């Protein structure tokens, strides 16, 4: 079944660091903007919730029509956000955890950034 999934890594200053459409459905022209709007707006909800819990994985914190937002907050307050229409809590949680690991590795290796970003990108798409 074709799923929609939009993934974004947001810095603690609310700046997007990395974006990728990771769903299996074909990419639509106007989907990208809607996805950004929804994810961006969800930051307010994450902000609200972040104070109330020490959990990193926050599932289904916001929704817009059929799309649901799940978030993974790192210790450095970087947010891994996923906009999805399927319900696969365990799958999503492990996806976040794996990306988080990769992200730490990439950050650690400061040199040759662009190569690592490419590798990172390929890994993300594969992980889905």
């Amino acid at each position, binding site marked *: 079944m074709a799923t929609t999934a939009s993934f974004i890594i947001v810095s603690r200053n609310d700046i997007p660091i990395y974006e990728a459409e990771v769903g299996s459905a074909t990419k639509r022209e106007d989907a990208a*903007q809607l996805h*950004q709007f929804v994810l*961006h*707006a*969800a930051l307010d*909800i994450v*902000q609200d919730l972040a104070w109330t819990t020490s959990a990193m994985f926050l599932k289904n914190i916001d929704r817009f029509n059929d799309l649901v937002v799940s978030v993974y907050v790192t210790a450095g307050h970087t947010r891994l956000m996923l906009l999805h229409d399927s319900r696969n809590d365990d799958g999503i949680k492990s996806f976040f955890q794996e990306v988080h690991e990769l992200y730490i590795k990439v950050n650690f290796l400061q040199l040759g950034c662009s190569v690592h970003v490419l590798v990172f990108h390929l890994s993300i798409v594969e992980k889905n």
Partner: protein
Amino acid sequence: MDPAGTPLGKMLLEEITPVVMVLRTPSVEEACVKNGLSFVEMLSPFCNFSNIDVPLRTSSDQPYRLHKFKLRLFYESDVRQPNIEVAKERLKQVITKAGEKENLELISDPPQVSNLLDSSKSELLPSWFEYLNKELIRTASFSEHETFDHPVGCLLVVSSKDEQPINRFIDLFNTNKLPSLLNDGAMDPKILKHYLLVHDNHDGSSEKASKILSEMKSTFGTNECHLLCINSSQDAKMEHQDDPWASYLKDLMHEFSSKHVIPYMEQKVRILNQQVSATRRGFRNQIKNLWWRKGKDDPNEMPSGSMYTFSSIESQIRVLGDHAFMLHDYELALANYRLISTDYKLDKAWKRYAGVQKLGSSGQQNATRCGLWWIEMLKTRDQYKEAASVYFRICSEELLHSAVMLEQASYCYLFSKPPMLYKYGFHLVLSGDRYRKTDQIKHAIRTYRSALSVYRETTWSYIRDHVHFHIGQWYALLGFHDVAVRHMLQVLACSHQSKATQELFLRDFLQIFQVSGFSFHGLVSLGQMLSYIKQFDLSLCI
């Protein structure tokens, strides 16, 4: 707790008050018109009591006293839902007119976020929201669904000048002319009836009138009949304060309310309460079946499409709740409203209560009305985030309606503690998009401009492009080409967009720039412009 002090409380006390239907002969109306007023206009000022001081005993054995009380008088021709199309058209005009803002403000820079957060609510909220919401609530009146609009009683009014007055009284309550509410089973047609004979002293002595009154009393009952003498002035207007016979009116309505309407309602509450309590034990299962049945095809449903008859348990509980509310027994009212929504998540109960699925467009109006009240309740308790989600929920396929609801939602997000600025921006964009779809370009610009306070310098590329591109297009539509170009420039560095989109951006930019031509006052240096274009895919250059 007396809710009368809160803004919501005041509003509900004004609106959820018992309705009395007025049936009168043309002669009655003529007598009043001589004074420049309709019959209802003449009596209405005397129907508002700040301290009617009537003892009541509703559910418990504890008596209490009713102080504030109000009757709403309507002619039978008005006890019907306002024509939906006419109402919609009027609302559209209100919105269009509100859009005719000062152009200067429309093209000026949007405020900084810090200024936004420092401003008061009244400074930020468009002033026409309140009027629009009131109108939306009004258009949902007198549906079959909402029982507090159903008349609790009826005033039959005949003039002493009428021929065969007793027959006229009987004719007035002719079922053919009565509102459909009374005929189609939505409400109990057996309502309190009161007979009023109007005599204008200007027309001569009241001897004849007194005779008619005796006849009325022997036909309809001693306590149900009254004589009202008025004095038409030689000239037109009548002054309530100075007029000596105003006190007769006051006494009449006071007696009607305190000795007839209120006791009648009190009695109804006691009877219904007994009936409902008796069935309450098995009630939960019963109502569950009722609800689930309504979701599928219900063979017992009335063919007219009415959701229920007045004798059903559901209806009885509503009437009980509404009557209790109008008699200020809020505990009893709440207990009954809860009965309907017990066991269900707010979502489902909400949909059912508003009857959206069943009643089509009138269901949407009811949902809007319920929603707007619920929102007022939430706002009073500073629950702005929840209020925003209700605004979102009462959006429909009706685009202009949704535009206004979404905009109101955005402000709720702004006013929540802590403020949710990104939600504010997003809902403004959703709203503006719908304004544009209904050709309200000025409103579209207005909302997108407000959104720019949040999105002006955003690093989220698609968001930035979307807002700047569209507002640029719309400014150009209205002829503000300088401002349009300024916004279009923001989208030119868009290598993240698809080729088709980049072409579109460039083409529109060039078109607008061409039109602005010599009026473009070098706000941006040519060098800056070139540096933007440099970031393009070279194959796009002409």
